[in-house]
């Protein structure tokens, strides 16, 4: 039995951390985050450029973009996992009001695993191949919850059971290579959930998995958010995953957020040409067949620096002159924020124009 059934996954009933001192703001507030990779003799590379977003408890926020858009680097910066040298991080990242950028390594080690946890894309490379699953899951419990070995292994078994791993006591003795891809990802999620973190960052958690396993993992995450009020930051390139899971979506392109919107407006009436282009270029299972796809021309490498214009301009079909001369700002338009000089029309506008004329 590998699926996370609701009766098995009782994370909600688990004794959570009860109401702390009343804190009103968002759980995670990222403000004007920028990450620059520097290397002697090379031009600096600004991987993340002025990214801001916030996540409230129980909310799922999606960070969508193609490879190289800076979504994973954003996550690493939030977790404080970027290397110390050769990287400049600017802006602010606050977890419950506490500034994380510049926090001491000790403090970050305390927070990581306990208050915030991360699930990486490839479970084979993020689990240690020569250490048993049991040790890797209990490690977190012993470090953060001061459990004894025996307590921790009982708790670890119950964690594995909750994420839908059958026969958890035996599995604790297994090594990563003895588990299938879906099982490994579950084990990784189990160790991320071990201390019931209030922020869970998932970086492409299902990209390496088959669709039927992906459906199981997404179901597990959905239950987790609903029942334990965990805030979830979901990083993915798959718009389908976002559509079924996220409350708010930020679309990134070349290091900046180009569109932020609740998921319904985003999918119903994308305003940024890049979002619109992405939606028009993926084949949909439920779309009538035979309709040609409208790809975005060029490749994600065809960008111009944000300083001199809109990075998407070289690939954009709706390009106007301003696009290549100055960078657009992220402006609020209706219930979305769009970074574009010539956004796609909002829904119903053509109808409204016709009404006025009539």
């Amino acid at each position, binding site marked *: *039995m*590998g*699926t996370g*059934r*609701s009766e098995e996954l009782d994370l909600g009933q688990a004794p959570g951390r009860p109401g702390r001192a009343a804190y009103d703001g968002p759980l995670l507030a990222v403000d004007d985050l920028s990450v620059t990779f520097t290397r002697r003799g090379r031009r600096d590379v600004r991987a993340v450029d002025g990214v801001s977003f916030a996540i409230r408890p129980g909310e799922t926020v999606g960070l969508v973009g*193609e*490879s190289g858009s800076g979504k994973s680097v954003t996550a690493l910066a939030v977790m404080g996992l970027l290397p110390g040298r050769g990287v400049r991080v600017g802006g602010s990242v606050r977890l419950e009001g506490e500034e994380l950028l510049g926090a001491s390594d000790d403090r970050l080690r305390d927070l990581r695993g306990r208050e915030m946890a991360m699930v990486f894309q490839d479970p084979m490379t993020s689990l240690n191949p020569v250490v048993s699953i049991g040790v890797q899951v209990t490690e977190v419990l012993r470090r953060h919850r001061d459990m004894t070995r025996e307590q921790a292994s009982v708790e670890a078994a119950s964690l594995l059971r909750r994420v839908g791993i*059958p026969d958890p006591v035996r599995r604790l003795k297994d090594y990563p290579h003895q588990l*299938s891809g*879906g*099982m490994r990802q579950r084990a990784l999620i189990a160790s991320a959930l071990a201390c019931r973190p209030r922020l869970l960052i998932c970086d492409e958690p299902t990209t390496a998995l*088959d*669709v*039927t*396993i*992906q*459906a*199981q993992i*997404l*179901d597990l995450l*959905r*239950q987790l958010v*609903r029942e334990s009020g965990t805030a979830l930051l979901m990083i993915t*390139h*798959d*718009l*389908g*995953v*976002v*559509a*079924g899971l996220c409350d708010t979506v930020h679309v990134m392109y070349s290091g900046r957020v180009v569109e932020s919107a609740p*998921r*319904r407006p985003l*999918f*119903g009436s994308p305003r940024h040409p890049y979002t619109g*282009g*992405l*939606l028009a*270029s*993926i*084949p*949909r*299972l*439920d779309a009538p*067949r035979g309709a*040609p*796809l*409208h*790809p*975005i*021309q060029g*490749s*994600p*490498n065809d960008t111009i620096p944000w300083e001199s214009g809109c990075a998407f301009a070289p*690939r954009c079909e709706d390009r106007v002159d301003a696009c290549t001369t100055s960078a657009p700002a992220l402006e609020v338009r209706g219930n979305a924020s769009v970074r574009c000089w010539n956004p796609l029309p909002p829904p119903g506008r053509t109808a409204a124009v016709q009404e006025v004329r009539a």
Partner: protein
Amino acid sequence: MSDSVEEAGKRLPAGPDPLLRVRGLKVHFPIVKGVFVDRVVGHVRAVDGVDLDVARGSTYGLVGESGCGKSTLGRAVLRLVEPTAGTVEFDGVDVASLKGEALRRERRRMQMVFQDPMSSLDPRQSVESVLMEPLLAHDVKPEGGVDAHVRRLLDVVGLPGSAAGRYPHEFSGGQRQRIGIARAIALNPDLVIADEPVSALDVSVQAQVVNLLEDLQEQLGLTYVVIAHDLAVVRHVSDTIGVMYLGMLVEEAPSDDLYATPRHPYTISLMSAIPIPDPDVEDLRERILLAGDLPSPANPPSGCRFHTRCPFRQETRCDDEVPLLRTLAPGHRVACHWAEEVADGRITPAASAFDATAVPTEA
């Protein structure tokens, strides 16, 4: 029910003259143990008895999860792996029994596009050399000379002529895949097998390659076998789709039929697991979750191979009787004992298979 099995046998020549006809194809890989003497202790049954026909000029899509044998099937058709049993008839010639020069000559007409365009191109070979190699190997003298042919190929796949002198690392993923496609069509083949042609590419670039494959089919009259795990992509390009599970074909249907009326429980579950980029659809969908993982193909379950995960599993037949592909509608073959009952709603999935978060749509 037995007469529908006979019908399936009679119906099989799909068109008047299929370009590719595969019968009873099996590929078993031996599991070897022992240090000095190899002892065969078992077989991985990657492909275990597949029959299919691909009509001339059409696209056949093969879908399934990793480990279901879809890539091995594609490679066995080209004899890149040796089939253990069965026949592969390509334009009336049994490729599976060809040897030496005869096989080499036949290969000219069957080409392959690989998944990862970086590892399937030699980094130290210029694009021109990549595209010339098939011509030299088969001693083909194209009209107007080799250089003109290379330029023509680049033009057809939408790359500038100046690309000829450059090397694979100078291109983006999508462009590299175009080079791989140009190589595959260099000899003007009849059949192109594309193994996951877009899954290594960025989302916004995938559509470019999908459109290119469709344009080329129209221009050159190619026949495709497209192998992919992404059912949405496969449905977009294919005329007929075969769904594989643990080395066997469990359902085969015209592309639109398969989406409108999936009959095999595996296909039904697979479709319901694929996320659709539309929140309204996602919220209202009835998801059927499959339990557990793909069983090992070295020791496949008895009876119906899907019965260990099947939400529609019944007490009888499923565990001990191998279901045959039966024709339920024209061109629609299903390997399930209970396909009619599932379609009529007389058998419903076990309650545990429903996603707790989906809104229930039926009583």
